[in-house]
């Protein structure tokens, strides 16, 4: 949670906001910095700054440019779309309030794309790997059918209170950006390569790399569900194979940057214990 700071002193409120954006026209092209300036208004966030930049489509020094590309959705920090690196820190741009950013640096706002995912254009990045990890850990409850079979199992309040925070993960990717063990995987499409072939090649590359704290936490969430745990073994198998829990270096950056304050390191610790037990059991079951 961002602690509410003191009201910005009106005397320090500038009439203009200087913004520097690290732009990139497309995959494989060189990034470049571009300066913009927009009028200050009360209650602005980085989204409204980018909206103004799009409407102006003109740089600080009057050059006509295309609007900066970026992703956004709900604008209230529940959809996970608008992650970027703002003044050097990974976060959601909707909850990055201009007045607060000024407290750190009144001169300018720096906007950069996340560095652990391939840039599509400007601040827009390709996070498909993050969703692929959810497939790897089979993050779902394997119900028999969607027919009416009555209520689900009764769940103690204590369990709900433990699981609900984990289920608030919005796949924003902040934890992955901050994780020293999570490295960028960027493949370039071959000439004439089909969608399917390219996807298959990407998925293969993803699977040899660290799965990430978000997916480990989801594995723990579903292993704790009375029916979800029917896939417990399969999930632990993934977590004990290449790119699994052993890749975690315990830097604890993930939990520090999570905008939803999900106890990711607690999940990782639980996953570590479960994985050890799973490996020992496998040894004896052989």
């Amino acid at each position, binding site marked *: *949670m961002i602690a*509410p*700071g003191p*009201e910005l002193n009106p005397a320090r409120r500038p009439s203009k906001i200087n913004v520097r954006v690290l732009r990139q026209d497309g995959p494989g092209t060189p990034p470049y910095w571009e300066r913009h300036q927009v009028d200050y*208004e*009360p*209650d602005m*966030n980085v*989204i409204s700054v980018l909206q103004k930049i*799009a*409407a102006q*489509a003109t740089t600080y020094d009057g050059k*006509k440019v*295309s*609007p900066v*590309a970026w992703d*956004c*959705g*709900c*604008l*209230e*920090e*529940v*959809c*996970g*779309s608008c992650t970027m690196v703002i003044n050097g820190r990974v976060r959601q741009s*909707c*909850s990055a*309030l201009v007045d607060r950013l000024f407290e750190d640096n009144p001169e300018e706002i720096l906007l950069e794309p996340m560095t652990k995912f391939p840039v*599509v*254009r400007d601040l827009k990045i390709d996070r498909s790997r993050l*969703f692929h990890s*959810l*497939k790897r850990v*089979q*993050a*779902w*409850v*394997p*119900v028999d*059918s*969607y027919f*009416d*079979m*009555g*209520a*689900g199992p*009764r*769940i*103690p*309040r204590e369990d*709900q*209170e433990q699981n*609900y925070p984990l*289920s*608030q993960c*919005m*796949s924003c990717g902040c934890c992955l950006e901050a994780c020293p063990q999570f490295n960028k995987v960027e493949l370039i499409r071959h000439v004439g390569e089909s969608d399917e072939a390219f996807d298959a090649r990407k998925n293969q590359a993803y699977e040899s790399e660290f799965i990430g704290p978000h997916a480990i936490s989801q594995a723990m969430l579903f292993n704790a569900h009375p*029916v*979800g745990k029917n896939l417990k073994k399969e999930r632990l198998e993934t977590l004990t194979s290449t790119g699994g829990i052993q890749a975690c270096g315990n830097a604890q950056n993930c939990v520090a940057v999570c905008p939803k304050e999900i106890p990711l390191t607690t999940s990782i610790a639980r996953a570590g214990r479960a994985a050890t037990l799973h490996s020992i059991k496998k040894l004896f079951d052989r």
Partner: protein
Amino acid sequence: MANNRVLVVGGGLAGLSATMKLAELGVAVDLISLTPVKRSHSVCAQGGINSVNDQTRQQGDSEWNHFDDTIYGGDFLQNQPPVKEMAYWAPKVIDLMDRLGVTFNRTPEGYIDRRRFGGTLYKRTAFAGATTGQQLLYALDEQVRRWEVEGLVKKYEFWDFLGPILDDNGRCVGAVAQDMVSMEIRSFAADAVVVATGGCGLLYGRSTMSVFCTGSAASRCFQAGAKYGNGEFIQVHPTAIPGADKLRLMSESARGEGGRVWVPRKPNDTRPPKQIPTSDRFFFLEERFPKYGNLVPRDIATREIFNICVNEGLSVDPTRMCVYLDLTHIPRHELDRKLGGILEIYEKFQGVDPREEPMKIFPAVHYSMGGLWVDYEANGEGGLLPGSPRNQSTNVPGLYAIGECDYQYHGANRLGANSLLSCIFSGLFVGPGIVNWMKSNKAAADLPKSIFERALGEHTARHKKLLSNASGDGENPYLLHQELGDIMTRTATVVRYNNQLTDAYEKVSAMVERSQRCSLADTGNWTNQNVIFTKSLQDMIPIAQCILKGALMRDESRGAHFKPDFCMPNLQATDPTERRHEAEKWCDAFEVNTSKFLKSSVCSWKGQEPDLVFEDIDTRLMKPRPRLYGLVGGEVIEEVWKQRSRSKEETAPSKPAAAKQLAGSV
């Protein structure tokens, strides 16, 4: 079903539940979405999802009562069979979501906890903290991912639906869509297309909706021949946090958990809220609506808050209009457990802890009750016939609409926590009907290629034409959007006047042509968000015209649509006989108005503007009765109305079942 494919457009609650149900039935699904489906606007739903449950049942509640509350809350503007079916399915929907692992709040004994929502006296609402929509969406997202791994679902995320493809007989046989990254435009053959693209809040500029909710997908279907119903019914939520880029929702659950709305009795009272003693606080909803209190239906709460600020001059902030929503009397741990998500939003965006200080809130555009017109087939009990291909079908054969983008379930005003229900219900229910539809039609994949090439050509030409409007002196699409939003917010929200609506309709109609002259700052063909936005702006305009035209032609007040020049008055007389006489006249006027306006407004597109007709409502189960929340003299009117209904029942014994229900429900 080996060769059949269905295309689902939109991956919110409705689209995902339809996708997973179709996959379960063995149908391959292509799923198109503007965003990774897990980020769809359903994540913003906060409060909960309604159904009768074991506890309320023992307090006298029933599926019928849920149906009745929904119809009465919606001011009778719904065809009743689909609403009845939804209310009767509601407990099953929640059971299913429970099995899928949704982390619903629990009672100490481990049952699903419930809270009370607006427009009902029962605690029907199941919830997962204050992020229920997010939790429900994630459960469905997970199931669809499971089917993706199984190979039955193929997702096209960051794709924009450009329009349905119709064959020479007018049957929908697929759609054209565009990859928002590579800008490739592609045609998809499909034996049915299901549009589940949510509301149209963006045409009001700022609303509680996500940036995806432009209404352009529905508009593209509308412009291709689908009818659009009840567009004028736009829900303005009573409680939102004003912001520069968005009006952020503050859930009704805040009031469901005991939150109180108030203003100081004295205008311009400068004392901090906590220093104002109870005797100086005006709890206007509680005083004016003793039965429902802070949980009156949304349209009513919205008008009251609007009134208190605009006409009574009691806004709590001298610089902008707002009232207090106060939770500070509720213990902190209780608030965190049940409302954590929304309190964090307030804290993050306003920098004030709502557990310590009353929140400042004001109404904001929130939900589209209207949407694509859809059909249904009733069964003998007045519910829906399961498996009928007519259920949720638009007037274009093979084109279906579900969720917020259909017009079917909420009438003139939606009750809180009924939207998540209608989305999931319609998504699950549409599947078997589509399977039956496909059995009786030639597979789209076997149709001549020329049909698809023609559609692809049209959309490619539109795209190229826009790109050729290079930077110049044309319209700036972002500024035009602001202008549209300003007009719509000023004229077509809480209070509506015909002269303003006429003026707005003219201005917006002129935008049909103006929006064609937008010049783009980006004419490239890689991740061009500029051109995608401009297309959606162009397509917002026909829906804005439907809203304005419907509002203009509906000379009455019903639910969210309120015209001071055409509304049913309070009773004035104090003498009992005169008051009774006045109530008789009130009921006469009500009957006249009902026969004139208890109708859906249904628009068809005519190239430059919509053509509007009024269509009868199916009230086979429950006769319309006056909606009397808080009306002065309401009890006398109710008495008169009951007597009239009883005498009608005696003279018309031909419909015993419906009449019995009527007597029981008034």
